[in-house]
């Protein structure tokens, strides 16, 4: 008697509701200088940004397609709508957000979450931010949390944005960075002044509602010396037959002795291409802590990069990837040690089931000047059945021998012995499997913001019986 059990998919009913949008709000699909100009007109871009977009478009056209990882053949860029006119202007008052957008976010728990535990919230619906708000006491401390576009038009921030925007991730970086530079829209700007510690997190939520569309938000965060911030980013989209594209960009500047914790929970629908670029530049004694949960999307390319640019700077990356049926999640982390005594610590877990594929890539570079640096990479994969797949691709490039680098990878399956052990104590097979998977993910889920950790445990616990395979 053999009964195959499985850990269930994430319950998507919460995310799969959607609203119809008005065709008049769509710009034509595809990417041309006309469309780029139209986006600039819609937004009233300053001249430098108009020029920047057009230059990025040129780079986009001459840059070859990425090819190293998961197949993106199903993505036809000529069919992607890059910009959707907003139904609403930016609001700071939740009541004035249009009803259907409001109910979408309310179903997702925003701004309920804000009322409960956040210092500020931003919500993006399709191409534009529809809501942004920070608590008064946070604003008084000099913290700026707003949408990037109004900040760009505000003379107080215009210069700082111009001098930082796509400097860490230049359009030349790769084809989707170039595309992002040309069509980016929405996203957040955060500035934390010297020695200001934000004890409670800020959160941005990105929701792509329209079908066959792309979301290209840009997040720019600058922490001055000695500052502390925890920023949470959540993403989701309902399911359509047309493929969607998310090519966001995140640029983080962590000042001297500052600490930034950046948590992402990505739960895009299973037909999204999630080709996202994230990068942090960390100054002397500063620290970047990435916490990354990748559960959704059809194909992901996601390798947050930390450049440790000052003595004693450090990076910590904690990630979990859960690839189910039809998913090919290519994730990992990159670290560049570019100063003495820097340290990095990467700890990831990946789970694949029902034919899902997860690939973990790590790239650690230790430059010649980074003497006395330390790096430790640890990745573990768990495959829940015989049709799923897991790969690990570590790359280490040390240009000095005065450093200490460690790498450990472990790939495995749930052992029958462990299941029998738990069952011999009266625990049913389904629960025994769930217990083992939860245990496997435990030291990562502990790092997730509480509500997401609960969600993750629920999804692992969601059952799983009877289906014979």
């Amino acid at each position, binding site marked *: *008697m053999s009964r195959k059990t499985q850990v269930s998919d994430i319950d998507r009913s919460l995310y799969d509701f959607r609203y119809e949008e008005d065709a008049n709000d769509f710009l034509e699909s595809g990417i041309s200088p006309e469309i780029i100009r139209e986006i600039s007109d819609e937004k009233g871009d300053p001249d430098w940004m108009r020029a920047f977009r057009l230059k990025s478009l040129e780079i986009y056209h001459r840059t070859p397609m990425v090819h190293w990882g998961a197949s993106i053949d199903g993505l036809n860029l000529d069919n992607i709508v890059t910009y959707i006119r907003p139904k609403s202007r930016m609001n700071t008052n939740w009541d004035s957000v249009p009803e259907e957008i409001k109910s979408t976010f309310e179903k997702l728990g925003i701004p309920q979450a804000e009322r409960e535990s956040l210092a500020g919230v931003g919500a993006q619906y399709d191409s534009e931010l529809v809501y942004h708000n920070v608590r008064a006491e946070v604003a008084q401390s000099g913290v700026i949390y707003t949408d990037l576009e109004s900040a760009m038009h505000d003379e107080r921030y215009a210069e700082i944005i111009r001098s930082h925007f796509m400097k860490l991730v230049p359009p030349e970086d790769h084809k989707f960075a170039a595309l992002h530079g040309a069509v980016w829209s929405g996203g957040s700007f955060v500035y934390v002044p010297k020695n200001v510690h934000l004890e409670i997190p800020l959160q941005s939520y990105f929701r792509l509602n329209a079908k066959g569309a792309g979301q290209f938000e840009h997040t720019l965060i600058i922490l001055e010396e000695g500052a502390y911030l925890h920023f949470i980013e959540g993403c989701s989209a309902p399911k359509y037959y047309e493929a969607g594209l998310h090519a966001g960009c995140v640029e983080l500047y962590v000042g001297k002795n500052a600490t930034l914790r950046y948590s992402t929970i990505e739960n895009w629908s299973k037909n999204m291409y999630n080709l996202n670029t994230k990068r942090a530049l960390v100054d002397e004694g500063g620290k970047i802590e990435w916490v990354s949960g990748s559960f959704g999307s059809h194909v992901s390319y996601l390798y947050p990069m930390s450049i440790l640019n000052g003595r004693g700077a450090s990076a910590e990356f904690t990630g979990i990837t859960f690839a189910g049926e039809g998913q090919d999640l290519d994730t990992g982390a990159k670290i560049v040690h570019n100063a003495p005594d820097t340290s990095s610590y990467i700890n990831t877990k990946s789970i694949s089931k029902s034919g899902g594929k997860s690939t973990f890539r790590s790239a650690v570079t230790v430059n010649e000047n980074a003497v006395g640096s330390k790096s430790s990479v640890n990745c573990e994969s768990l495959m829940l059945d015989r049709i799923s797949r897991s790969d690990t691709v570590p790359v280490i490039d040390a240009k000095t021998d005065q450093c200490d680098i460690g790498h450990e990878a472990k790939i495995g399956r749930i052992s029958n012995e462990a299941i029998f*052990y*738990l069952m*011999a*104590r009266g*625990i*049913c097979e389904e629960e025994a499997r769930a217990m083992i998977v939860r*245990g496997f993910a435990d030291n990562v889920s502990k790092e997730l913001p509480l509500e997401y950790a609960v969600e993750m445990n629920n999804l692992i616990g969601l059952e799983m019986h009877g289906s014979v395979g």
Partner: protein
Amino acid sequence: MSELLRIQNLSAGIEGKELLHGISLSVSEGETHVLMGQNGAGKSTLGSTIMGSPEYTVTDGNIYFDGENITNESADKRAKRGIFLSFQNPIEIPGITLSEFLRNALEQQTGMRIKLWEHKKKLKAAMETLSMDFSYAERDLNVGFSGGEKKKAEILQLLMLQPKLAILDETDSGLDVDAVKIVSKGIEEYRKTVNGALIIITHNTKILEELHVDCTHILSNGRIVKEGDGQLAADVLANGFEKYIGEV
């Protein structure tokens, strides 16, 4: 005393290789049975098969517990009926503490919610019996436990779950004299609180010193080759198996 476990002409093995050949055995409430035999004789296979390990397939015969045929039941159902197996090599399970795990197992077995406060109180008392530091309760199940602590944690589970039948698979092996004493104390405590039955698989005299053994079964090549009372176990431990194995 009423019969608890009856094994009738049981044959079992792995993928076409039979390891147990026509074993019959009967254990009644309150009895202590000892299984002896050389390595590879089939002692652990028999213990695991009684527990319902999916590793072994029963090819012939039946297992009855409390009068019901459980030959095809899964291990969790057998555990709920009151069968317990102390593992030779307990498995490390990260992400769940020993305390949470036991509470979970008790709730599964009884189908009732157990108050945390009451659970902790009971757990603490049981840990004291076994001279276990209470900090182990909040550590992940068996993770990083020494060999001795793992065995103690098995006996702790025995005391908490209070099964009707406990199979102890070399629970005493690899333990130092003091640890064996503690394990014996745990078994004694189990005997006192539950009028259960014990099947002890062992190579060691120490663990049997404090126990009254009702029946000894000697296994060789998957068969019971000799049966007797407690004296037989003592003889084997003093003089070795050869005499009995030779009789086959």
